[in-house]
């Protein structure tokens, strides 16, 4: 049994404790910082909690997102083409925090932009901006010395991905330095591709619960309120990424500029997902 290293309770811990008290599963939403442009992305970010997002994952754009499918690849490139960079991503978090000191915010992405920025400087700036946790796809436990251990020291949660290929033997090593919550990737594959059956998710959640007391969020391939609800019935939260990003894409005009009503349309989709999650155990 692995539990979180001893740390002061973070926004993530408080949010999952609150969800538990309310007896419902949560909704974790993903958008890419700067997609389709900085202002629209910030407006979306600010609107997510009101639309029912319990935890926010904010993607750090990267040219080579090798675990992501076409939707999130395209989102990253849209952002980069509009001048997104790490400093702008952190600015966005600071701007968000001016109006919201409660909703947990997790930065998600790949290691190179962080390594390039400088690990110590990144952790200091991310923490100062109001970042609660990190998900870095290409840093398995074998590379914990790079960012995971410094992050834990800096008081930033390091949220690990576990997958169907993480067997019982490997699981303790994967969970050892994990804090905040555990993100279960329910399919072997890239983001936005296929989805796992409810039975497979039930079984995986049961297996993970034998290994950890940390909250469990389940993602990959969740696209509808019904699927989100099915996941939230057994897990502590459902993660939706590509489906939201595709809503952004669907609300661009032919020049790739945000069409009128983009923010409202995307948030409407998030509200439907949140509704599904909230009534799941009802």
């Amino acid at each position, binding site marked *: 049994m692995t539990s979180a290293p001893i740390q002061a309770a973070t926004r993530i811990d408080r949010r999952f404790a609150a969800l538990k008290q309310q007896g419902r599963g949560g909704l974790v939403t993903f958008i890419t910082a700067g997609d389709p442009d900085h202002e629209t992305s910030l407006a979306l970010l600010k609107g997510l909690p009101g639309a029912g997002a319990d935890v926010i994952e904010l993607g750090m754009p990267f040219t080579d997102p090798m675990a992501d499918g076409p939707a999130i690849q395209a989102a990253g490139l849209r952002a980069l083409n509009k001048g997104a960079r790490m400093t702008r991503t952190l600015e966005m978090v600071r701007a968000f925090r001016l109006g919201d000191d409660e909703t947990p915010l997790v930065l998600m992405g790949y290691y190179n932009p962080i390594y390039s920025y400088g690990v110590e400087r990144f952790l200091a700036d991310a923490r100062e901006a109001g970042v609660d946790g990190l998900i870095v796809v290409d840093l398995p436990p074998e590379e914990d010395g790079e960012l995971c251990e410094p992050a834990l020291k800096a008081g930033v949660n390091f949220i690990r991905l576990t997958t169907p290929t993480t067997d019982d033997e490997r699981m303790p090593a994967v969970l050892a330095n994990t804090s905040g919550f555990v993100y279960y990737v329910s399919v072997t594959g*890239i983001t936005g591709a296929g989805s796992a059956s409810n039975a497979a998710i039930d079984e995986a959640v049961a297996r993970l619960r034998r290994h950890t007391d940390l909250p469990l969020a389940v993602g990959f391939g969740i696209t509808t309120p019904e699927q989100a609800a099915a996941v939230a019935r057994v897990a502590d939260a459902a993660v939706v990424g590509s489906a939201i990003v595709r809503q952004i894409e669907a609300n661009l005009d032919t020049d790739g500029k945000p069409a009128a009503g983009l923010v409202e349309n995307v948030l409407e989709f998030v509200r439907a997902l949140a509704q599904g999650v909230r009534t799941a155990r009802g």
Partner: protein
Amino acid sequence: MNKPLNSYRNGPDEHGHFGIFGGRFVAETLMPLILEVERAYEEAKADPEFHAELAHQLKHYVGRPSPLYFAKRLTEELGGAKIYFKRDELNHTGAHKINNCMGQILLAKRMGKKRIIAETGAGQHGVATATVCALMGLPCVVYMGATDIARQAPNVFRMKLLGAEVRAVTSGAGTLKDAMNDALRDWVTNVEDTFYIIGTAAGPHPYPAMVRDFQSIIGRETREQMMEAEGRLPDMLVACIGGGSNAIGLFHDFLDEPTVRMVAVEAGGHGLDVPNGHAASLKGGRPGVLHGNRTYLLQDDDGQILEGHSISAGLDYPGIGPEHSWLHEVGRVDYVSATDKEALDAFQLLARTEGILPALEPSHALAAVQRIAPTLSKDTLLVMNLCGRGDKDIFTVGKELGVAL
């Protein structure tokens, strides 16, 4: 037996590190599989039967050993060092790539894998992979950038003839790095039955070490052949470098020979002073993490990867194998560059003086030889790895020279 402590040949360590370079920067889904490949490779390395089968295939199917050829006319033309070519372009499929593919497909079979994937730039690695898959009766999917498909049409057709499925990659600039991204995406989706044959000495551990080991036969043969020809070791080794598998293959056996100088030639494209106009990761990049390893990368100040440029699709990659990054930092190998134009000139020089059409990749090495050889004494023994033949490049060269084919 313990390896000597003072050696350039001890890497990588158990975590796959050459100094600070290398490592295993992959998604968790792939991590158990990477560890499985490492275990299986360690077992195969210790199994005489594996080596015997590999040696048999290299001899009878690939056609090894490749000759070490004294280029008399070129030597006279340049008027300096005595120039030898290691003729790996004479291997079956026309490049050094098959040395590695043969090793990896035997490993894949040993592991019971049912499906092979690969990435390719110039198409040489794709052709070599498709070839060994046909030989072993395994289905093969090759990821290739759409840009590269356009400039390497003959190799695309060859792969199809060999029964492989060539999937065009349109993300990014549609070149080698994007093909590698999509191959990794395929692998993460099909972890159970698929083996990924990486074409260069890069990627997550154990690939850089494994590919190097399979290519090291180039250097071992060279040592033996040079002893036979001249009764002593070569003084200088020259090889082109994209990911760096032909260079490490030639160099590795000689790394601890203090009298052997080594020069690796990166693709200088339009020139190192042209922003994003070259593919020289060491001279024009800085350390970063991509495709499973830490190494020198072409990147902007935000850590976003640049596409780079080279006339040679096989060198058009923004990274380099991690062992080269380390050899660069410790100073054991000199890394230089040659431009598109220098490579084109060298291509034509070799055709005229020796009757050999080199691939555009080793044409970069030859451009460096053209610069260096005249400065060396006539008793200097220089070996250049002629790692691929140029038939595939005649359309590119024709276009550059303004000749419609």
